[in-house]
């Protein structure tokens, strides 16, 4: 299981700080895939943590605090990320690119293709194909029905398959 894979089981953390130290980076990676920007990702993570912190004692006792934070993170992104951030991102600055993938063009193309997805579909893609959640788990995180997850997933995949950013790569 990768670090990014959601841990719905107990993380082993005994307090909030320890939880953040252990799982903060994984949350940040998901947030980066949602936002495509390191600074915005950090802000999204901290917003989700700030919203979740008051519930630490109550939710931690159930062993599902990370799932709680993750749900806050994704629903925050879907619900009002656009309202808060859409106008702020400077258009002249391209999203920063990671350093692990071999092909910079492919990274850029995938980043741009993801950015064309509606926020709900992008959230579904990250949960299903980055965090490896099942359709039901994805539905629980987003607070929607499994049918919605299926339809959003299908639409997102169709969009990505036909994205000029990605098909161009395949055509060449």
């Amino acid at each position, binding site marked *: 299981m990768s670090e990014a894979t959601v841990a719905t089981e107990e993380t082993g953390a005994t307090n909030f700080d320890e939880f953040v*130290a252990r799982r903060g980076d994984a949350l940040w990676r998901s947030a980066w895939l949602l936002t495509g920007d390191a600074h915005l990702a950090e802000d999204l993570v901290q917003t989700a943590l700030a919203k979740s912190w008051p519930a630490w004692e109550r939710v931690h006792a159930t062993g599902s605090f990370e799932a709680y934070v993750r749900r806050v993170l994704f629903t925050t992104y879907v619900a009002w990320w656009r309202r*808060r951030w859409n106008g702020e991102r*400077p258009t002249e600055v391209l999203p920063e690119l990671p350093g692990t993938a071999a092909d910079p063009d492919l*990274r850029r193309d995938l*980043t741009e293709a993801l950015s064309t997805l509606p926020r709900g579909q992008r959230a579904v893609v*990250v949960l299903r194909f980055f965090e490896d959640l099942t359709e039901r788990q994805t539905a629980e995180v987003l607070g929607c029905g499994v049918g919605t997850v299926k339809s959003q997933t299908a639409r997102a995949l169709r969009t*990505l398959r036909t994205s000029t950013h990605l098909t161009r790569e395949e055509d060449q």
Partner: protein
Amino acid sequence: MNDESKLHKALQDLVPDPPATPLRAAAARNRAQVARRRRRTVVASAVAVAVIAVAAPLGLTTFTGDDSGPTPPPTADRSGETPAAPDELTCPAVRTDGAPAVDLTGPDELPEGAIAVRLCFPAGFISTQAPIDALTTGVAKVVGSVNALPVEPTPNGCPADGGRTWQLVFQYPDGGTQAVEGASHGCGGVSVGTVIRGSRATAERPLNRFISLLLAQRASGSPATPPTVDLTCQGGPDDPDAGLSALPLRTPIDFDHAVLCWSFAIESDQPTLQAAIDPADLAVLLADLNANTTTTSTVPTDRACAPTVPNFTILGVTSWGDRMALDGWCSEFNLYGRTPAYWKPGPESQRILDTIVAANPLQIQLPDGGTPPDQVVTRWADLVTAGDDRADEMWAGTPPAFSGRIEVRPEDRRRFAPIADTPAAAYEKVVEQMALLRQVPSDGGWSEYHEYRFVLVRNGSDEAWQILLAEDHGVVPTGR
């Protein structure tokens, strides 16, 4: 490998390594505490703004290079562990004793992790209004734009020009602050700690980044309490920057309230007239403006403005308290943005403007003891142009037979002792005021300038200067 497997692999490869953020938990707790305090004390509509109000402290240890563990950023004030809310981040008081208005001590590179930044302006050559709100979203980008400016060597000499100096005061999670000061005049650059970053040409990059981020932040909120901002046309159309907001005028324009300022292209110095615009009338004007602004790549060439046509400026205040000016010339208003634009008021708007002007007519005052000779001459010209019989009251001698519109450009002046037995000898004080004068044809067209010698007299400093005579020295050969 199917599409879903490919996508999984691609996403895993795509995501970068996260930055070191060891104080992430503390920052999140602080954010939650601030939000909770706000909820207890402010109206519900302000809560969303408050939650937004503390932004990400990113990479808090990246500046230290210290292996002993994370160290809070060096700041000027470490009086408490609980961060101040961004609305408590205030601009430093303006100093009148010559001391620096803001403490610029600190590291030569801004520490990462700032949670808020406020724009301030010290008292200076140009009066500029700072935004009422601090930036709390994307603060790291402003920090980055400051640090991206290279450290420049101390120059040997700098232009002695004037300009605007600005300050950005950053706040950190522990409540401490760090300020930088920038200018695009003089030596220019941004003072950060002991160094100057950037140059005259690049100093405003952090400022511009701040402004663009602040405007974006505002797009998702509204001020909890609209501030009270005075509107006076003290600067008038000739000084539109005085006291105006540092933020750009953006369309659609939505002023909370506004005043109309106007003056005339006449010869004498007259105060700018001012009248409040009725809210209903303002709504009509703004609706017309927002619907009928014309963008243009060139400024209209027909810019001659008759003395009877007022030059307008609409001075307004946005809901955020920003004092903005719609600068007018003749019957149009200019909107200076990335693309030049102008608005020519429609019939209903023009009727509103004309009604305001008609209700507040310009009264050219006769000179008094404090009016200098050059202004006496220009006031006389204005009264002649206006067909005002009081023009003749300004003469100690016989008024010339001028009528219609005249323009006069005062030049040199000197005091002289009159020759005995001449009319001027009858007065205690006599001055000679040279001026260029022309009579403007009725169609406003071109005519020759003549050089005139005005002689003005009076018997005491309490008396107004009177014009004794005006000698025509002929057409000015230079064609001025």
